């Protein structure tokens, strides 16, 4: 028997709102609902509660948000790239699923199998963030109690948006964070259970759950950021005033050439922020901070750089083998995620001891957590053990400092002689054939055999240091080492300045730009995420970011992409990217939010828009938030070199919010895209929010998650994906201009689909108007005269006057619109408004 509710109604203004109308089951959460409705700053207006059919979802399961997920997945059904012909998920397998209509013993078909893989991948990616956030809470509780107040900073109006839209309460203390994370932990277990044999069987249900895991990724990531900022001192822009932001935060040195190897070098890899912070504090307390190098690769490099200005950020996570082969570290402190499985063997070869600090990546090392630091250090320095597992940040830091001091200067490792090693090459071509980017390694090895290393050095420019060439070489030639050695001079000059991560775009900045989208001053927001696993990724990501900044896009970055872009050189300004532009979330700015968990700050920014512009309440109100973002906010993510499951989960989380995602070529290896079909007119519709009329609309954005082949394609695609159904006129002009200009620059012509985005001739950029009007007339059969639209051709073939066309195609500019039937104004409310 359920207990009696504490109360059944909440009074908002003069209206009594029955709780059972808002949520499926209010038992036990009556007070949470009440607070969500009546919270003075972020609660509900009485009028809005009357206008629409409000449904709130507190700590929802995936199923409770299917109303929104189904809208997206109907428009953008998954396109799968099967990994195998057979299903081996249960003991009845293998079942061949390749033939048309083939089903396995359990009824599984190929799409369902791939949907299972999609959900599993999304859960795995999210589990990293959830368990990482849990570890951070545990670390925080060693220093503070549950009542410790946590926030992004004093200028924050919306305390914890990603958790708040799901769980329905804000996070003010560690206890709140613990409660929200517990929800995520319960959910991820449920989602993973759904992906097991004998449970979920429907493709769309499975993909809804993959979305849900993505939302949990962003929730957990924001909790991780809150703890890092509030408990471990990572810098946050929300603690600063607006006038301080153009040059906030500090720069850190970036690049392999920045490390001073005459000093002992402690290198942090993976997610190991707490040991990093402890090490810095220890070095400061012992007055060693100037005498020992603190360096980081991947997430650790970004996070520790947010804490300590002297951190050397040596590269993105994919650079780690290069760093090891170069022998830069004297000790490697490894956390979790994005560390190659062969790192211990690599470190052994390079005589670099490893301190593993995560339960999730023990590397086969002995657990020495309970031992004295001196004992761990002596065993490692005496080479009795290659490293140790130390699940204690303070102890790991103390051991790392001592080991670095003792090992420094004793390593006797050098890269092999190129010409000599290359003599073993028989030119079989295996290296080039297995290189994920098909670099011309074989030819370069041929030249190296003759003593010419220039071609190998060119390979270095596009190499992602995966070592696949080497592991497949039948002659066991250390090809990666040769590539690295050929570029030694270049590596010495890899010295750049990177703006340290700064957490969330501040409320003050966001308010400044929120209306700029409508006025067309800003064409959209593009955020870069993902890893450097693409040939030439460093230059590519920097090139794209720079190009978008020059075209007045707001540009954000997070994760290893933020590192990769640091080396891009702006020829006009004669500065590298982060020095060329200020660090504001404004036009001509580039904001590095931080490591992968800082992707939650990017999501925060998108949610804030809905509240600043439309006052859309956030608590447990996911659907309305996403509906608004998808229909109105021009925002997209570029994941140029996606590698890990984390990025898969992040892509799911952003896509569910209505944020479009462009992936680099290797994004196809995630084996699922969410693609729209612009030719299927039945898929492109939207409700006029006041009348409920279902209008045919432009196919925009055309896709939700899509991969492209080149950086030029990525730029054009991203401008195309920023079109939104509810664009204002000036915003649409600005987007059109960017899309057409970029397309013409790169593809030497005009896009074939531009007519589909024309709602009125007033939205065509002036500089291109005559040309486009002529094409509309000659190619698409529109009626125009002297550059003015007389009659437009509706997709159904009817010729309509501009007024009729505007009424029948697209949403009228400035009109409230929605994709969710219950968010249409109720008929009696509409009548009231008309009377007024």
């Amino acid at each position, binding site marked *: 028997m359920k207990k009696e509710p504490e109360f059944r109604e909440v009074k908002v203004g003069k209206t009594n709102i029955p709780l059972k109308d808002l949520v499926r089951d209010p038992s036990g959460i009556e007070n949470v609902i009440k607070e969500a409705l009546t919270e003075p700053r972020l609660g509900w207006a009485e009028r809005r509660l009357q206008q629409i059919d409000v449904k709130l979802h507190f700590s929802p399961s995936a199923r409770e948000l299917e109303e929104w997920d189904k809208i997206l997945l109907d428009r953008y059904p998954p*396109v*799968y*790239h*099967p*990994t195998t012909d057979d299903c081996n998920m249960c003991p009845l397998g293998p079942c061949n*699923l*390749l033939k*048309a209509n083939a089903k396995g013993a359990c009824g599984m078909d*190929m799409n369902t199998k791939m949907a299972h893989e999609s959900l599993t991948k999304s859960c795995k990616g999210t589990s990293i963030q959830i368990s990482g956030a849990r570890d951070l809470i545990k670390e925080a509780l060693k220093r503070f109690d549950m009542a410790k107040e946590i926030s992004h900073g004093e200028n924050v109006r919306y305390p914890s948006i990603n958790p708040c839209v799901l769980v329905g309460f804000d996070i003010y203390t560690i206890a709140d964070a613990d409660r929200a994370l517990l929800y995520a932990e319960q959910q991820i277990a449920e989602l993973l259970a759904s992906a097991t044999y004998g449970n979920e069987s429907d493709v769309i249900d499975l993909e809804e759950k993959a979305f849900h895991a993505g939302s949990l990724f962003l929730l957990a990531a924001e909790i991780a950021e809150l703890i890092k900022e509030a408990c471990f001192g990572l810098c946050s822009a929300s603690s600063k005033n607006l006038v301080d932001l153009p040059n906030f935060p500090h720069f850190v040195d970036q690049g392999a050439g920045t490390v001073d190897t005459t000093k002992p070098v402690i290198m942090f890899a993976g997610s190991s922020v707490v040991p990093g912070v402890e090490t810095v504090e220890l070095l400061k307390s012992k007055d060693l901070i100037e005498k020992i190098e603190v360096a980081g690769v991947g997430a650790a490099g970004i996070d520790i750089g947010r804490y300590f200005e002297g951190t050397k950020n040596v590269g993105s996570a994919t650079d780690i083998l290069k760093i090891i082969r170069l022998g830069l570290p004297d000790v490697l402190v490894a956390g979790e995620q994005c560390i190659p499985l062969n790192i211990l063997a690599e470190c052994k070869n390079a005589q670099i001891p490893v301190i593993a600090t995560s339960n999730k990546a023990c590397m086969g090392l002995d657990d020495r957590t309970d031992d004295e630091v001196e004992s761990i250090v002596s065993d490692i320095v005496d080479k009795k053990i290659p490293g140790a597992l130390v699940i204690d940040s303070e102890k790991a830091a103390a051991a790392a400092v001592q080991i670095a001091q003792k090992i420094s200067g004793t390593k006797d490792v050098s890269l092999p002689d190129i010409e000599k090693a290359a003599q073993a090459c028989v030119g079989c*071509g295996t290296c080039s*054939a297995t290189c*994920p*980017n*098909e670099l011309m390694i074989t030819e370069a090895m041929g030249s190296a055999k003759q003593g010419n290393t220039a071609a190998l050095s060119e390979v270095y420019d596009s190499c992602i240091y995966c070592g696949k060439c080497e592991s497949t070489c039948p002659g066991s030639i250390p090809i990666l080492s040769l590539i690295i050695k050929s570029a030694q001079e270049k590596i010495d000059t890899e010295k750049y300045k990177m703006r340290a991560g700064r957490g969330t775009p501040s409320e003050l900045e966001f308010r400044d730009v929120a209306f700029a989208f409508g006025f067309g001053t800003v064409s959209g927001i593009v955020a870069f995420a993902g890893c450097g696993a693409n040939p030439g990724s460093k230059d590519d990501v920097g090139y794209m970011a720079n190009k978008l900044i020059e075209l007045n896009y707001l540009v954000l970055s997070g994760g290893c992409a933020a590192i990769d872009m640091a080396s891009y050189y702006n020829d006009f300004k004669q500065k590298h990217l982060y020095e060329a532009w200020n660090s504001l979330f404004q036009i001509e700015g580039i904001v590095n939010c931080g490591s992968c968990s800082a992707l939650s700050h990017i999501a925060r920014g998108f949610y804030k828009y809905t509240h600043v512009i439309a006052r859309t309440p956030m608590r447990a109100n996911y659907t309305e938030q996403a509906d608004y973002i998808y229909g109105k906010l021009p925002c997209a993510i570029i994941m140029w070199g996606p590698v890990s499951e984390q990025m898969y989960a992040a892509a799911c989380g952003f896509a569910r919010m209505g944020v479009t995602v462009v992936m680099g*070529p*290797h994004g*196809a*290896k995630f*084996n699922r*895209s969410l*693609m729209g*079909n612009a*030719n*299927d007119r039945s898929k492109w519709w939207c409700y006029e929010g006041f009348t409920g009329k279902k209008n045919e609309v432009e196919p925009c954005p055309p*896709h939700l998650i*899509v*991969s*492209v*082949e*080149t950086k*030029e*394609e990525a730029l054009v*695609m991203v401008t195309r994906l920023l079109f939104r159904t509810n664009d204002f006129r000036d915003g649409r002009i600005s987007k059109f201009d960017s899309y057409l200009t970029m*397309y013409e620059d*790169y*593809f*030497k*012509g005009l*896009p*074939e689909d531009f007519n589909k985005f024309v709602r009125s001739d007033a939205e065509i950029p002036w500089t291109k108007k005559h040309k486009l009007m002529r094409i509309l007339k000659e190619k698409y059969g529109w009626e125009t005269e002297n550059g003015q639209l007389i009659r437009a051709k509706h997709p159904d073939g009817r010729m309509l006057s501009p007024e009729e066309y505007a009424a029948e195609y697209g949403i009228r500019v400035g009109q409230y619109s929605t994709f969710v039937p219950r968010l249409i104004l109720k008929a009696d409310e509409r009548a009231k408004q008309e009377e007024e």
Partner: protein
Amino acid sequence: MSRISFAEIPALIKDAKNPMIVTGAKSNDCIIEQAMKLSDKLGIHIAATGNTIADFRGKDFKRCSKEWIAEVTNFMIQPEWQGYDGKGKPDMIIFAGYLSSVLDRFLATLRAFTSCKTLTLDNKYMANATFSLSPLSLNDWETKLKDAIEQI
């Protein structure tokens, strides 16, 4: 699926009722030239993905359009799609100019969800293609490719 020799290419292409050429970001001059030649011979459309449309337009070649590899694949699995030239859904796609590990993903989709045959002209074997060549030296590959197209 099946490794073929260059000598088999002319017959395979001639057997197709409605083939389409798709060129990718890794296309070199040879691929662009041979794609145009093949298109001229058979009067078939080139879907130029990556940045290759700029190459075709630079040579004033008209029977082509800027497309995206992900969209090509997506259209192919739509039952009602009639091809970029409106002549019906292609029964064979001739691919050239791709990173093999990337194209292989799209080939896997076509293999699993369509009845369309796929032929890759690149200098590497792709397991999910219906027909694919074995790797050769770059010079040999170019010479043999030109010969094969010449014979059509």
